[in-house]
């Protein structure tokens, strides 16, 4: 309903409501992708909402608005990585080294930013979308614009790495 109001009449108040509704999840997504860089996350989130407003005519409602918004966010993040090189991307060898040092985790408490570092960028994105933002596999495939099988592989690999990391960091499952 809100989306239709913005699309049909350019209703800014309706878009303001949409922004309030989704700002938390989009900013959180960026915050985790940028390893906790709050300022950069907010800049990227602002860009996401502005681009969404400018492109609302192209939203056809096939997928949910949230999925569409995350796809814009994903594109903006990787455009930013490619053009500005602002994030501290860890290269493959560093990731592998970190991953191989299974007993080297010194922190007593598992920290989400540290946990994110052991994943490759694609794995990180897929894992965040699946476990934190509760997106389904097909939705993640649309957001990341890659085949469903690839998404499943990213999540599986990410899950294995993070599972080991968390266990080594002393994190325990509370339920049964």
């Amino acid at each position, binding site marked *: 309903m809100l989306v239709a109001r913005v699309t049909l009449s350019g209703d800014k108040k309706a*878009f*303001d409501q949409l*922004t309030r509704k989704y700002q938390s999840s989009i900013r959180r997504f960026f915050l985790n992708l940028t390893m906790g860089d709050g300022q950069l996350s907010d800049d990227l989130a602002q860009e996401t909402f502005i681009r969404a407003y400018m492109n609302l005519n192209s939203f056809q409602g096939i997928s949910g608005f949230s999925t569409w918004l995350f796809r814009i966010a994903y594109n903006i993040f990787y455009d930013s990585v490619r053009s500005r090189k602002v994030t501290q991307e860890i290269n493959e060898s560093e990731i592998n080294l970190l991953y191989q040092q299974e007993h080297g985790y010194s922190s007593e408490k598992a920290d989400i930013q540290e946990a994110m570092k052991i994943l490759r960028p694609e794995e990180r994105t897929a894992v965040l979308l699946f*476990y934190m933002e509760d997106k389904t596999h097909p939705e993640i495939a649309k957001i990341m614009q890659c085949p469903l099988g690839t998404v499943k592989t990213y999540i599986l690999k990410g899950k294995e790495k993070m*599972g080991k990391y968390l266990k080594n960091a002393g994190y325990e499952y509370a339920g049964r």
Partner: protein
Amino acid sequence: MQVMNTQDDKILKQFFQENKKEIPDTFFSRKVMQKIPERRKYEWLIILLAGLGSLISFVFGKFEIIRPNITIPDITITVERGIFIYILAGIILIPFITLFFYFFKTDKKRLNF
């Protein structure tokens, strides 16, 4: 292997849900709204230009249909008529060029979603 996967799955679900924090708005949406450009005004300008171009084309086109009947063909008039046709062709192209850029721009922005 399957058991381990399920265990990892549970651990990860719990870990991420524990770390899932709601971020308060604190003027974020206001900043976004201040930066949003006037999208609609620009679109109306394009449609207005396309309409204006179409109207001019129609008026001049109609005149051109009548004109050959009232003109006595000689060398001087033929040259004038030639220039007139070029001008007319240019005017007729206005709505098409405007619409082309409008749709080209829209297509470029489209996210196919």
